[in-house]
């Protein structure tokens, strides 16, 4: 398998947002450092949010638990 960075660049080049969600999540999971993990999780979350992908809520929750995303006041829209 290609290195993660190469796969990320390929996904960006192809504008494959589903792949970007998965790859940025993978990058976050591989990061030992909190800021890097927050950075990658943020990207995974944003692309999931844009797609209306089911992973969005879990990604958001991870960011909330890291203190990097405000907790939701209410959930009424899948795009939140």
């Amino acid at each position, binding site marked *: 398998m290609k290195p993660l960075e190469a796969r990320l660049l390929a996904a960006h080049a192809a504008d494959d947002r589903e792949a970007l969600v998965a790859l940025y999540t993978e990058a976050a999971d591989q990061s030992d450092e*909190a*800021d*890097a*993990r*927050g*950075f*990658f*999780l*943020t*990207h995974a*979350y*944003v692309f*999931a*949010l*844009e*797609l*209306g*992908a089911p992973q*969005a809520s879990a990604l958001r929750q991870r*960011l909330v638990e890291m203190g*990097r*995303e*405000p907790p939701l006041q209410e959930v009424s*829209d*899948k*795009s*939140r």
Partner: protein
Amino acid sequence: MDQSQTDLSNVRRPIAEANGLPNAHYTDPAVFDEEKHALLYDGWSGLAVAADVPEIGDAVPLNFLGMPLLLIRDRQGQVRVFQNICRHRGMILVDAPRKIEGAIRCPYHSWCYSTEGRLVSTPHVGGPGQNKHDGIDRALLGLMEVRSHIWMGVVWINVSGTAPDFTVANADLLARWAEFDRPLYHGGADSTFKLEVNCNWKLAVENYCESYHLPWVHPGLNSYSRLEDHYHIEQAGLYAGQGTFVYRQIRGEGDEVFPDFEGLSDKWDTAAEYITAFPNVLLGVHRDHTFAIILEPQGPEKTCEHVHLFYATPQTDDDLRARNAKQWKEVFVEDIFVVEGMQRGRHAVSFDGGRFSPAMDGPTHLFHAWVAGRLDHQRAMVQAAE
């Protein structure tokens, strides 16, 4: 009076003594801009049709008098209009029609908005990987929504936010056509077309309002719809147009017709009405179809006419629908040389706005008087503020 302002004193006089709007109202960019605010932003203007965004998440960027707007059908199915810019750096959010699957993501720094306009994500706003900051209150930074209302299939907007509610502002017209306040089904791709015309948008209104020109410009109508079969529709300050007592349904090869709207009174068996809802929407109603022409002013001397036909049922005969669109397009195209000719005529420096036929031009004069009244009001407001 400001030296740069046009003299409208004659326009609002009784029709037998009045002159039409001065040339500058058709040619001068400064007057176009003045009218943009007084007539188009302050009132309820037609922007698009709800059928432009038939499904949830459908989003269409539009340009209205230079302002970037986003027409969208939100997750609850409601049609909304937003200013098509991010609250961060004013970047255009959506630059081509597309489906919003989840959130609207700004292509610049990826701030994200729900289809209802809420700001839902501000990535890295507090630094790398930190998506919140005390200085960023998402609740205050949603998309800027433009007031909108759907009627007759048209999306109407009030840019200034100062007009009375649509149903109040247009109560008289809504009551007049209450029988048509029912689901209208857009005929689809073969029932919409655009006409690019080299004229000021008001000339299209003026021509549409009156029946005086019909026997000369649309001679095909003479065989069954004579001038004397028409009547004026005049509601000062609100709308103007014309009606006919002898509408004849289009028929197919096998004598088939479109289904009627349910519950219409007997009047509509043979009647049809054509009204301009001020400022920029030309509407027509018949027993079996309606249409809306949204005038998109593109400059003092350029207008795009967006024509849409609607029916009483979701499915209609394909051939008949195509023939109906073709028939209406022929009629509307017949009007182009007139409105473009009047536009060129507005460069004749001695033209005084013209004289109206007291008998035949009532609806057109009523429109001119409405324009003048709105401009007088705006000028008084500006003067009072100074």
